[in-house]
């Protein structure tokens, strides 16, 4: 019955992912001295959106409608490969993280084309910036994974996180800390959080991701919001696996600890959003280049070790 555990893990990711934005919002509300939205707000939103009829602009074509579907499908597929609590999911193979990287690319490509299909200057602007930041974020992420492969001597994510134990943190702490920092910056940028983007400002020209989906409505918007939550889960899980090397041998214990770490990552995002202002748009590449530098340094440290 080895299929049950991966299935449970996958379903847990699908069901719990919309909690993460809720946790972030509650942390931000706490810092601002407000009560904030319910933690389950995104679930309510998704339910409501799924009931609504969509509206399509006469400019749009099938590309606009296909964008959210392909975007969600790509991220759902990537979660079937991503390890959960350091344990393999349905698919784990040599180089699986490259597949994941390109699945994220597919989701981005579909979203950007859907945005351009509206013929709107706002959405074109968002699409252009999304592609610009990807050019800086992807190499940082890639090099980070390369360093991780070198540290662990493994070429699949499940393999890497399988050997990432407390011992490795004791011997290679600087490398792993740099990598965690780099992944966290990539998480902030890829999930359009402060300081790269601001998920709260729906009408400002500085926005990137939100402005790309301005015209989507009803079930398509639900697909997009759910996809965004899953993507946050994806990057959160990477960081949780980094900072939480497996200790106990029991599946339940590991899973519980992993879920706690995920909540911790979400809380950290909330703290960052509360204490840092959004960067000026032209400074965002510098932040991503910082992540790139962290990854490179980690790789150099590891080569010299």
């Amino acid at each position: 019955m080895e299929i049950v555990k991966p299935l449970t893990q996958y379903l847990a990711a699908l069901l719990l992912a919309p909690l993460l934005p809720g946790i972030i919002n509650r942390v931000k509300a706490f810092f601002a001295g407000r009560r904030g939205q319910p933690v389950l707000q995104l679930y309510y939103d998704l339910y409501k959106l799924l009931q609504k009829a969509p509206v399509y602009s006469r400019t749009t074509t099938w590309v606009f409608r296909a964008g959210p579907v392909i975007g969600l499908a790509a991220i759902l597929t990537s979660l079937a490969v991503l390890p959960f609590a350091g344990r393999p999911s349905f698919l784990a193979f040599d180089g699986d993280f490259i597949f994941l990287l390109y699945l994220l690319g597919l989701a981005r490509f579909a979203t950007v084309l859907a945005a351009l299909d509206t013929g709107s200057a706002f959405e074109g602007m968002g699409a252009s910036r999304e592609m610009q930041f990807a050019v800086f974020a992807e190499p940082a992420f890639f090099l980070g994974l390369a360093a991780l492969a070198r540290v662990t001597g493994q070429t699949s994510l499940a393999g890497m996180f399988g050997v990432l134990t407390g011992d490795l943190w004791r011997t290679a702490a600087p490398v792993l800390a740099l990598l965690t920092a780099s992944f966290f910056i990539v998480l902030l940028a890829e999930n359009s959080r402060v300081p790269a983007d601001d998920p709260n400002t729906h009408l400002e020209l500085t926005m990137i991701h939100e402005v790309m989906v301005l015209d989507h409505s009803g079930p398509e918007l639900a697909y997009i919001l759910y996809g965004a939550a899953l993507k946050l889960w994806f990057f959160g899980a990477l960081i949780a696996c980094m900072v939480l090397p497996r200790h106990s041998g029991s599946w339940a214990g590991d899973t519980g600890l992993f879920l706690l770490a995920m909540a911790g990552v979400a809380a950290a995002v909330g703290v960052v959003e509360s204490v840092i202002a959004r960067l000026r748009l032209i400074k965002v590449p510098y932040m991503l280049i910082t992540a790139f530098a962290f990854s490179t340094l980690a790789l150099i440290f590891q080569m010299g070790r």
Partner: protein
Amino acid sequence: MLLVLLSIILLLASSALALFFSREPSRAQDAGAYGAVAASALGLWAAVRTLAAGSAETLSLPWSVPLGSLSFCLDPLSALFLVPVFLLTGLAAVYGVGYLRSYAGSKPLGLAWAAFNTLTAAMVLVFTAANAVLFLLGWELMAAASFLLVLFEHDKAQSRKAGFIYLAAGGAGALLLMAAFALLGAGSPLLDFASFRTPSGTAASAIFLLALGGFGLKAGFIPLHVWLPEAHPAAPSHVSAVMSGVMIKTGIYGLIRVLVFLGPWQEWWGWTLLAAGCVSCVLGALFALAQHELKRVLAYSSIENIGIILAAVGLGMVGAAHNADRLAALAFAGALLHVFNHSLFKGLLFMGAGAVLHGAGTAELDALGGLAKKMPRTALLFIAGAASACALPPFNGFAGEFLVYLGAFKGISSYPAVALAGVLAGLSLAVAGALAAAAFARAAGAAFLGEPRTERAAAAHPPDGLMLFSMYALGALCLAVCAAAPLLLVPLVSAVGAGFGGGFGAAAALEVPGPLVYISAGALLLAAVAAIAAVKRRSMFPAARTADVPTWDCGYAAPTARMQYGASSFAQPLTDFFQPVLRKLGQYPVIAEYFPGKASFSTEAQAVVYNAVYAPAAARIRDLAYRFSWLQHGRLQIYIMYIVVTLLGLLLWKL
């Protein structure tokens, strides 16, 4: 083997027939296209059979040409390069019938078809020749035929310039190759590939550099690429597809062949190829992002893909120098798979661009827009091709790059030198991939999505059935290659063995099966999940009402086509960031008053390498040539005298 020769003969015969019918365009079209398709079917059968069997067939006949012999060899490496040749030329011929129809009467279609089929025959000859003289004959025939096709629209100044640069590049490349073959065959009576002896270290390095220059000029990696972005867009679109999809691969093929003749590789050769490949793939993608014309975007993307192939070969050679055979096998298999994949998706993309040019009369990105409504099928196929070119699963571009990445990661946990090569190759692929995604999202978005920017774009008409048929076939292949990747195992392994040496073939047989299975598993999983998501979406609102509303645009009620993001504005953040490399020229309005009047701006993508290196060098050569202008009198008698004196001199030297 005989089938391949038969297809060459068929191609040349149909060329002659097309030329014969040059007064009657429709008959010339028939003669050319039927010949091309029949030859494709024959050749494809032979090539696929060789790949499946994994064995080589040779044929050798005496030939009266000095140093030459009619030696042919069809081994799995040749066959792997021949399959895309036959696939793409056959489909391009079908496409060409539809595409060239509108030129009937205004252009010599008979000549165009003759040149097209001769080009195909010459490529087949290059891929099967086992004698240097025969090889160079095919090589020059290929250059001449494609030169004629580049000049198809010779009434345009840009085409003439492209033709001239192409001719110069082809000539220079052939000279270098002759020198390389002369060194390789020194001391043997015939320049047969089988009779080449392994040269010594220094000679081998010299031959390597000559071959790199000669074949590199055809393959078009940076900095030898200057002819490519000029010539490929100038040719008719089905010819651009063939030139970009398969003709430039003759350079890769030749390089691989020569590497085997050279015996034990030196490590710095691998580093040289790796460096050239990394630079080409990153800069190719970056330059593609800055272009304003659809076919030029595609031409620069070809440079990017040649860079990926070259980087993979270089990575493999560095690995081989450190006895990392498994890494090398993965990199070589990835390179060869990408050769095949690139021909499919680049063929599809050029045909899509041709449909745009055919339907809207222009391929300038800033004059297009909204074509997805006028030509929905072309839009679908172009976007599929674009996704392939960005290596996005479940399309075929991903499969080859995945093997290269895997090789790179095998290297990363190895010795420091190999690790450095792995990091360089993988990082370049990642950067190039992100840039290519931006370039293709921009190209597809500006051409097909949003509102039409000009009246011409608004009045565009869809391509005809023949053109669509070819594009559908290529699009289906793009999907099939990734989904059925394990089927490619036998061809890949035997081609790696035939091209790089049996040891790598054996290593590939161990390393490649797993990744191919996972590529197809991943692609099928993705397709299944997407299908579920789409069905679920459809089931929620089976008859979604499409209200007749404008784009919401934050409540702005009167958006116009001019307000949408164009190709220049989409690329601007990135092109500004990389301005030190791109050096684009621009004129931007300066707003000094409170109520500014009309303003305009323009940007122009420069041919950076051409302007910085080649144009000054060409000017220097021209100045030098002027000093010898006293030799040129324009009198026939004096030229005859030159010929006689030269012949006499040669005679005396030989005596």
